[in-house]
C-alpha cells in the first residue's frame, strides 16, 4: 500500500491521538499540521519525526499537494467549514465528532464529499472499544436473539475536571448545543446504533443541569430512542459531584433470547442466554484487542480509500448521531417525542441557547481547544 500524506487541522488535545495513530499506521505518513496559533503548530511539529510542515492557516495546508487526507480536529462549530474546504481541495477527510452543529451543516459536508469523490469518516471512536466490538460480534452471531432494549448508563462528573479550563470551547457560551448530550451523547448514540444495527425512529428526552450551574450547560440526561423494530435505546448520563467510576458504565443489552453486558472493562463481556443460571464471561477476540479505537478508525479509512469503499463510520452515521442529540434537545424543550430523521424545519436548529446559565466569556480562543 502506497503511503498517503496526512495533515492535521487543529492542534488541540485530541490531535495527539491522531498523530500517534498515523505515525504507526500502514500506508500513512504525517506530513502537515495547522493551528491558528502558529507557535503551537510549530512546537508540535518539532516533536514529531519526521517533522511535518507547520501551517497557521489551514487553507494553506489544504493546498499542500503532499496532503492526501485531512484530519479535522477543530471545535465542532468549525467542522463544516473545514470539511467542505478540504473536500473541495480533493482531500479525503477524517472529521472528529461531533460531526457538526446542525443537520444542514452535516448534509453540506456529505454533499461536498460526494461531489468531490472523496471519503468522509466521522471520528466515533467509542464504538470501537473492545467491549462494544465484542458485543456486536455476539449479537451478529445471534447469541441473544433480536435486540429488545439497549440500556446505557454513564455516570460522570457534574463539574469540569480540574484539567479543563472554564473557557474550553466545548462548553463555552455561544457554542450552542455543546453540552454533554451533544459531546458525549453522540458517542453513546453511535455505539447503540452500532450494537443494534438499526436506526432510531423517534426520540424523547429529559435534560437538566443540577449541580454544575455556571460550568457545564447540562449535567444529567436520560434520552430514550425507539427504532423501527421497536428496540428501545435508553441512554442516561448522571453527573455526580464526586465522580464514582462505576464498574457497570456501559451498555446492558436485552435480547429476545439472552442478555449481554458490555461495560468499560478490560478483558471481557458477559453474556447470559435463556436457560443459563449465570453470566458467562466472553474474552475479547485477539484481533479486537490488537488495535485501539483510533488506530482502527484510521486503518479503516485508509483501507476504504485503497479499496474505494465506504468508510466504517460514514458521514451519514455522524449525521444520525447529531440528529439523536438535537432531537433530544428539541424533545426536552417541547416535552414531546420527536420523529427521526428530523424534519426539514429543524435542519438549522443548533441546540438550546446556553448564554443564560453560563457566565463565561464570549468568543472562541483557539488555544483553549
Amino acid at each position: 500500500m502506497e503511503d498517503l500524506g496526512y495533515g492535521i487541522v487543529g492542534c488541540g488535545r485530541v490531535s495527539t491521538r491522531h498523530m500517534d495513530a498515523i505515525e504507526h499506521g500502514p500506508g500513512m505518513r504525517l506530513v502537515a499540521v495547522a493551528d491558528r496559533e502558529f507557535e503551537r503548530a510549530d512546537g508540535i511539529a518539532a516533536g514529531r519525526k519526521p517533522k511535518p510542515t507547520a501551517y497557521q492557516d489551514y487553507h494553506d495546508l489544504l493546498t499542500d499537494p503532499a496532503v492526501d487526507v485531512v484530519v479535522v480536529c477543530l471545535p465542532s462549530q468549525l467542522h463544516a467549514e473545514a470539511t467542505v474546504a478540504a473536500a473541495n481541495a480533493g482531500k479525503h477527510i477524517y472529521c472528529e465528532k461531533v460531526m457538526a452543529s446542525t443537520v444542514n451543516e452535516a448534509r453540506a459536508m456529505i454533499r461536498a464529499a460526494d461531489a468531490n469523490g472523496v471519503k468522509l469518516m466521522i471520528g466515533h471512536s467509542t464504538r470501537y472499544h473492545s467491549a462494544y466490538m465484542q458485543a456486536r460480534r455476539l449479537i451478529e452471531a445471534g447469541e441473544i436473539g433480536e435486540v429488545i432494549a439497549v440500556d446505557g448508563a454513564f455516570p460522570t462528573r457534574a463539574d469540569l475536571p480540574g484539567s479543563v479550563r472554564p473557557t474550553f470551547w466545548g462548553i463555552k457560551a455561544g457554542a450552542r448545543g455543546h453540552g454533554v448530550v451533544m459531546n458525549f451523547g453522540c458517542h453513546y448514540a453511535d455505539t447503540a446504533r452500532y450494537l443494534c444495527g438499526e436506526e432510531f425512529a423517534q426520540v424523547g428526552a429529559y435534560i437538566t443541569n443540577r449541580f454544575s450551574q455556571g460550568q457545564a450547560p447540562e449535567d444529567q440526561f436520560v434520552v430514550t430512542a425507539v427504532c423501527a423494530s421497536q428496540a428501545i435505546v435508553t441512554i442516561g448520563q448522571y453527573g455526580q459531584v464526586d465522580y464514582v467510576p462505576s464498574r457497570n458504565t456501559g451498555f446492558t443489552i436485552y435480547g429476545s433470547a439472552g442478555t449481554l453486558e458490555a461495560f468499560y472493562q478490560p478483558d471481557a463481556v458477559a453474556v447470559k442466554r435463556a436457560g443459563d443460571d449465570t453470566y458467562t464471561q466472553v474474552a475479547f477476540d485477539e484481533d479486537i484487542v490488537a488495535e485501539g479505537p483510533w488506530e482502527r478508525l484510521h486503518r479503516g479509512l485508509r483501507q476504504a480509500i485503497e479499496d474505494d469503499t465506504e468508510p466504517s463510520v460514514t458521514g451519514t452515521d455522524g449525521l444520525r448521531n447529531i440528529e439523536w442529540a438535537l432531537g433530544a434537545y428539541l424533545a426536552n424543550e417541547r416535552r414531546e417525542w420527536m420523529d427521526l430523521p428530523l424534519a426539514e424545519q429543524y435542519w438549522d436548529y443548533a441546540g438550546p441557547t446556553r448564554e443564560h446559565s453560563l457566565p463565561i466569556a464570549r468568543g472562541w480562543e483557539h488555544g483553549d481547544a
Partner: protein
Amino acid sequence: METLGYGVIGCGRVSKRHMDAAEQIDGAQLVAVADANLEKAREIAGQRESKPKAYQDYHDLLADGKVDVAVVCVPTQLHAEATIAAADAGKHIYCEKAMASTLKECRDMIAAADDSNIKLTIGQSTRFHGAFQQARRLIEAGQIGEVISVDGAFPTGATLAENVPPDFWRFKAGAQGHGYVVNFGCHYIDTARYICGQDPRHVSAFIANRYSAGQIPEDQFVITCVCDGQAIITIGLYGAPVYTNAPNTGFTVYGSEGVLEAYYRPDGLTLKRGSEEATPIEIDADLRGTDPWLRFHTAFRRCIEEDAAPPVTGRDGMLNLEWAMAAYLANERRAWMDLPLGPEFYEYGGPKLYETVQVAEE
C-alpha cells in the same frame, strides 16, 4: 398484642401468601375466606390449619364479627367496591395492588377509609424485599449523597407463562389498563419512590407490544419520570419470548457521591463510594430470612396496634397508579404528562388494550 381476625376476600393465586402471613405473624389469626366460587373457598379453608369459615359472598364475610382485617385479593377492577364495603363495615384493609382501575376509585377508597377511621394499606410488597429495604437504609444514612437517578431494568417473559390460563382475569377483554405497566410497573415505581424518597412530577413513556399480540396488552416499556427532588427514575420492562432471568434485575441508584446496586438476588446489593471498589453489602439481620409478605403484614399489624400510618398508604397506591395512567397517556399523546393528573383524568382507565388481544369470553 391482642389477636385480630383476618378475612381474605378472593381465593386466587396471591391469596395463599396472605393466608400464610395471617397464620404466622403475631397478633393475627385467619378466621374467614370468601370466593365467588364457594367450592373453592371451602376447599381452601379446609386446607388451612386455622380452619377459617368459608363464604361465597364477601359481604357476609364483612358482616362476620370475628373479622377485624379484610385482605382484598379480588381482581383489580373490583378493589374499590370491596374496599369501600370493608371500610363501611369498620374493617381495616390490606388491598392488593394495583390499587384500582382509576384515580377516582382510589380517591373514593381513601375517603372511605378516612371516614371510617380504619387503616388502609396497598399490597406493594416489592419494596419489602431485603435488598430494596437495605438500599433505602443506606440512602437515608447518606451513603451515596443525593439521589440523582434510579435506573430499574426488568427483563421478563413476553408471553403468558405456561401455568397462567389464557382467560386469567388480568388479561381479559374489558379489563382496561391491566397490562404490564399497571400490573408490574406499579411495583417498580413504588419501590423506586420508596428508595429515593421522592414522587414523580413529569412522566414520559414508550410502551409497545412486540411479541405478544393476541396474548397480553403490552410486553415492552420504558417509562422515565422526573421527581420533585430532581431525581430521574427510569423503569424499563423488556419482555422476551424466552425469558432470560437476568441476575441484575432490579435497580441501580446513582447518587451525588456514590452508586448503589439493588437486585432481587440474595447477594444483590453493592455499594460504591467515590473511587472505592464496589463492595457487597450484607443485609441487616432484621431484613434477612423473612419473606416480603410476612414483613409487610407484620408492619401493617403494628400500625393498627400503634394507630400509626400504614407502611404503604392509600396515597402511595394512588400515586403508583397515577404514574401508570400518566405513562399510558404520555405514550398515546407522545408528550410528557404532569403529575398530579388533573380531574379530567380521574376516570381514565388506561387504553383500550384489548382490541389486539384475542381472548375467549368466559
